């Protein structure tokens, strides 16, 4: 066990950083390769006091072993860790799992083909990638990772939130909306694997960009759709497509493969124009990829149908989220309490009852 204190600590996170190194080679590499020298601040193990950040570090094989320990529930491995630093981990170290790790993680390694960022990184809820750590930025970077907040959905506007506690909504509807807004601290994705969920999120950012409605951070449509895919669904599918969950996996794989074939990068690392270009082709029914053994992809015609499903799923999930309802002033869920069920008395255009949430002004002109 090695302990380091950081002499250039900022005011908020000036706690010392204490590394636990997994695998004998790792520490040596840290010492050799990094200008910022943990050894400089070595303290005796007794300094493993309450206030320190405990960071697990590993590289290569040892990183894979550490991740396996973390995902197979080996509590002892993760015990007390606040963050991970993984140096040159195998990009496919978690590829057979759906695990989402909560520990803030700094991924270090050159990544010419984007496999580290495209395959491994999506398994971490909070992560940063750097090609190599050198100099002061490493320290700051590590502290930034350590203090990364957990991603949360946009908050529900307080006025709307208090209507949800009022008597114009049924108890069941209230709890459905609260559950939806709360999201899940799930340890795994439900239907898609994390790299494909990352592709889905990137696609959704382009298909349904939320900033105009939720300027201070959006909702996780990808997670909502991933969860939907594991439910019985709505009783139909295009005969030309496989069942919804398989169709999504294959469609996202098709987009990712298309990105790699055309730009030698995973879809999530393409710039917006590149992503839009692929989506436009998919929507037009002209996106083709070379089929590969084992990994199902969709044909151009299937991608066109899937784009319809995707848009429909995204749009529905969006307007069904209470944070969005609040912003748009949609009160369909507030249509009456358990007893009495009030319904709506004010039905006239241009009017709403005093209790109803305000609607932001209409947008002029044509949308397209």
């Amino acid at each position, binding site marked *: 066990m090695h302990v380091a204190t950081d002499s250039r600590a900022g005011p908020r996170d000036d706690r010392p950083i204490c590394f636990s190194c997994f695998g004998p080679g790792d520490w040596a590499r840290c010492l050799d390769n990094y200008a910022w020298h943990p050894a400089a601040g070595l303290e005796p193990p007794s300094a493993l006091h309450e206030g320190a950040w405990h960071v697990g570090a590993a590289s290569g094989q040892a990183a894979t072993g550490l991740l396996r320990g973390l995902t197979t529930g080996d509590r002892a491995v993760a015990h007390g860790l606040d963050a991970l630093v993984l140096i040159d981990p195998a990009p496919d170290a978690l590829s057979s799992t759906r695990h989402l790790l909560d520990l803030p993680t700094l991924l270090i390694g050159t990544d010419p083909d984007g496999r580290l960022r495209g395959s491994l990184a999506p398994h971490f809820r909070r992560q940063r990638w750097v090609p190599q750590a050198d100099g002061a930025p490493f320290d700051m970077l590590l502290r930034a990772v350590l203090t990364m907040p957990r991603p949360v959905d946009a908050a529900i506007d307080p006025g709307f939130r208090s209507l949800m506690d009022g008597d114009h909504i049924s108890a*069941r509807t209230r709890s459905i909306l609260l559950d939806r807004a709360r999201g899940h601290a799930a340890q795994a994705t439900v239907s898609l694997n994390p790299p494909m969920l990352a592709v889905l999120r990137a696609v959704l950012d382009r298909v349904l*960009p939320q900033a105009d409605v939720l300027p201070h951070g959006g909702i996780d449509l990808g997670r909502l759709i991933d969860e939907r895919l594991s439910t019985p669904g*709505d*009783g139909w599918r295009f*005969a030309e497509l496989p069942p919804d969950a398989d169709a999504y996996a294959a469609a996202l794989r098709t987009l990712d493969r298309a990105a790699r074939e055309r730009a030698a990068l995973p879809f999530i690392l393409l710039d917006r124009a590149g992503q839009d270009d692929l989506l436009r082709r998919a929507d037009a029914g002209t996106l083709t990829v070379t089929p590969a053994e084992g990994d199902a992809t969709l044909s151009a015609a299937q991608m066109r149908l899937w784009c319809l499903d995707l*848009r429909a799923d995204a*749009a529905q999930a969006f307007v069904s989220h209470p944070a969005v309802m609040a912003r748009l002033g949609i009160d369909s869920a507030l249509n009456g309490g358990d007893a009495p069920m009030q319904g709506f008395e004010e*039905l006239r255009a241009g009017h709403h009852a005093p209790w109803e949430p305000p609607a932001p002004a209409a*947008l002029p002109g044509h*949308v397209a």
Partner: protein
Amino acid sequence: MTAVRDRRPEDRADVVVVGTGAGGAPLLAELAAAGLHVVALEAGPVFRPDTFTPDEATAAELYWRDERLSAGENPQAFGGNNSGTGVGGSMLHYGAFMPRMDARDFHLFNETGQGCDWPFGAAELEPWVVQVEETIGVSGPATYPWDPERRYAYAPAARNAPAEIMVRAASAIGLTCTDAPAAVITQTREQPHYGRRLGCVGCGACHQGCRNDAKSGPVNTWLPLARAAGADIRSGCMVNGLERDGTGRISAVLYREQGVDRRLPCRAVVLSAGAVETPRLLLHTGLANGSGQVGRNYMTHVATQVWGSFDEEIRPNRGYPSAIISEDMMRPADADFAGGYLIQSLGMMPATWANLVARSRGLWGESLVRALRRYNFSAGVGINGEGLPSESNRVELSCEADASGMPKPRIFHNNGPNERAMHDHAARLLTRLWAAAGAHDIWVAERAAHMIGTCRMGTDPRNAVVDPFGRSFDIDNLWICDHSVFPSAAAANPALTIMALSLRTARALRLTL
């Protein structure tokens, strides 16, 4: 393989009714009242009205969830438009728009040389129609412009913003319209054997289930009557087979209840599983298909909608969604198609509307979001129009089985020239209407609604599955009573006609036992 077990050794029925929706429920009440021992087997669960939720994602629990495969050039996006499941069938989430079928629609072939005639006319069905309206409770205007003799027991549902807009715009372009007939009661009613039903409060969530019992359906009308007369209604029972005796008649119904295969001996069976599940069961069992018509002539209604944005808040989720009707287009003078269509004003719940926007407008990115932001300023108007039977439209079995052990149905749907012409006509008219209303950003959604046909009734066993009373030509104790017996789609929304046919079939069936 699980062993097939009788539920109880003495378990048997005079009549087993498969499904408890518009087709099954009225007949169940009639047969029970006639003293027959009737058992209903319903695949879906029991829903309590007070647990319905306007949250659309959750209300999907009311839809038929076993996967259907949508095929053809115009594959139907079922979802919220799909048939329902549960005690009460599709009427748990139906829209309760309740026009009567136009007398001309019974004889469309005779009139135009297209489509298919019914084996009887409007006069034959009218007494049953009136009985249905009285039993369930229907509201409508004091005077119905297209049938001034007609009376409704309840004052119409309150007009919401889309309704007011339609009234205003219709008068501007010279279209007659009035308050819609709706199976929605507008004041408190004591329903026999059920209890108190409250009047409509305009909550707008008819398609998610009415918590107030203002919406009339099997659950608060026919099924309590049936139970009071001794009918046994079993939920969670999925019928997947029919057993025959040495003479070829049905001797028992086979079903799966919580994973256990059961058998219920009976003297007669009525299939009321809807126009997809009824032919699916018959195709799976290979029965009653001497005509080769089972699964054929699948029809839908042309259900074009036009939406637009307004400067004022509309809040289309408020109020009974379809409060205004026009029957002026039942036979438009300038029609280049056979048959006609009804027009209705449209409010809509947000996710249903978002789905429509996403599937119809071809938008994505910022423009999709701009479109969605207009929800509260949007109002719609839509049609329900005749769809013709066609060779290319059918229900057939796929190669994939589901939990019932039966193959999933594949449904072919193509719009023919008549449907396209009607859609174009309606799109033009409604766009003009909405322009007159002052809407901007007007858009058209090409849609189809309802699942119709697939076991048509007729007088000729060579081209019909059942006779004019719903009795199979091939197996004399097998009856069909649901949307699948319709020879033609007719423009009117179907539930009233299905229920009237159900009472009529019940009478005929009773006489055979």
